[in-house]
């Protein structure tokens, strides 16, 4: 989280759902002392164009994060487990994976 100078307003991460069918996406951050002001600032900053549907603001210091580079064992999931992928197995038809549609 951002190092914060004493007395500076809190940092808020901004998430925007740009249109129907999409999840909220992280777009940046604003500074504000409280949540309502953070929403107003996020609106002024990230929704000046388009037809945005929804905004979230989350205090930056409330986000708990982990990244592969920092704690590799945390993410030793998928890479070494090829059996989690369909390509690991024989296709269902002679056409190969392309003819494999089940839907």
């Amino acid at each position, binding site marked *: 989280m951002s190092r914060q100078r004493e007395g500076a307003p809190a940092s808020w991460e901004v998430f925007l759902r740009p249109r129907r069918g999409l999840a909220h996406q992280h777009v940046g951050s604003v500074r504000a002392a409280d*949540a309502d002001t953070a929403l107003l600032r996020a609106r002024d*900053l990230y929704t000046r164009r388009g037809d945005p549907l929804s905004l979230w603001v989350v205090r930056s210091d409330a*986000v708990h994060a982990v990244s592969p580079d920092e704690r590799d064992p945390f993410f030793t999931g998928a890479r070494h487990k090829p059996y989690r992928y369909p390509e690991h197995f024989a296709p269902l038809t002679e056409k190969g994976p392309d003819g494999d549609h089940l839907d």
Partner: protein
Amino acid sequence: MSAQPTATEPAAQDELLAHFDGLIASGATIEPRDWMPEGYRRMLIRQIAQHAHSEIIGMQPEGAWLTRAPSLHRKSVLIAKVQDEAGHGMYLYSAAETLGVDRAELLDALHQGRQRASATFNHPALTWADTGAIAWLTDGAAVVNQMPLCRTSYGPYARAMRRVCQEEAFHVRQGYDLMRALCEGSPEQKAMAQDAVNRWWLPAVALMFGPPDTAAGGADDRTAALGAAVSRRAITWGIKRHTNDELRQRFVDSCVPQAERLGLTLPDPAIRWNEERGHYDFTPVDWDVYRAALGEDTHWSRQRVAHRRGAHEDGAWVREASAAYAARFGADGSPSEADTEADVAAVEAARDGAGERV
């Protein structure tokens, strides 16, 4: 969310550096929590802060014309444009904060002269046509400069620049449209447009691209070597993608036909098509030309920062009131345990301060 550099052993440092170099070489982005060399972090903070400062200081010359726009349409457009510039500054301060600085520190550095905005805006907007010339020429130069930054190696900076570039296209077009209207108007209006171009061409072509950094750009060997060393560093790290002089040439090539269509003359007698190079020749931007364009230590250069500092100081009561409100009602807007008498007093004091001004 910012990077948290962690203390590491020297051997691990080599490994981290190799991993970092590998990411840059593969064209992948560096993200806030990734390890990065201290020089990379410093170069980014310096560049992003300078860029953010330029956006907010850049509001001033055009902002001065908001109350004097010739029609409601032009006024609405100019308000939207100036508001975008403020927004661009905020996108960039937000990106800089992911590198572990506080935007309040960066603003202090601007106010105290430890960091600077682009010298382009040390020049005044003397007539209405200047708002068009600024948007067409300096924003046009900014687009040429900023398109490659959409692929810069630091993820948050690249994403901020993609937002900026989407909006910048509107700035250039409305500026060109404003100039076209003047050029199709009365002889006086066309003369006003030409005068604005005469004054804004050099700031755009020299200052928006930075000092000369290649011998081909017309710099002497020593200057070129100095500029090249900085550019090379930035290019190695994927922060920059092109030399200043390359981008300058690209800008001149795009501007000359646009000026011809308006029937305006760019104030550089050396501009002519060079069949052999496939580019327009123009007066090289050497250090003398560059310095002449700077307008440093002039009334306007002092005025820009003083005005910004004044706005910041005038807004102190709003920040205090906002902090007092949050202290009383909690940052999430609900009443909190911090609702002490002292906080109530602070809110009341802030309200009194506010009352004096309305």
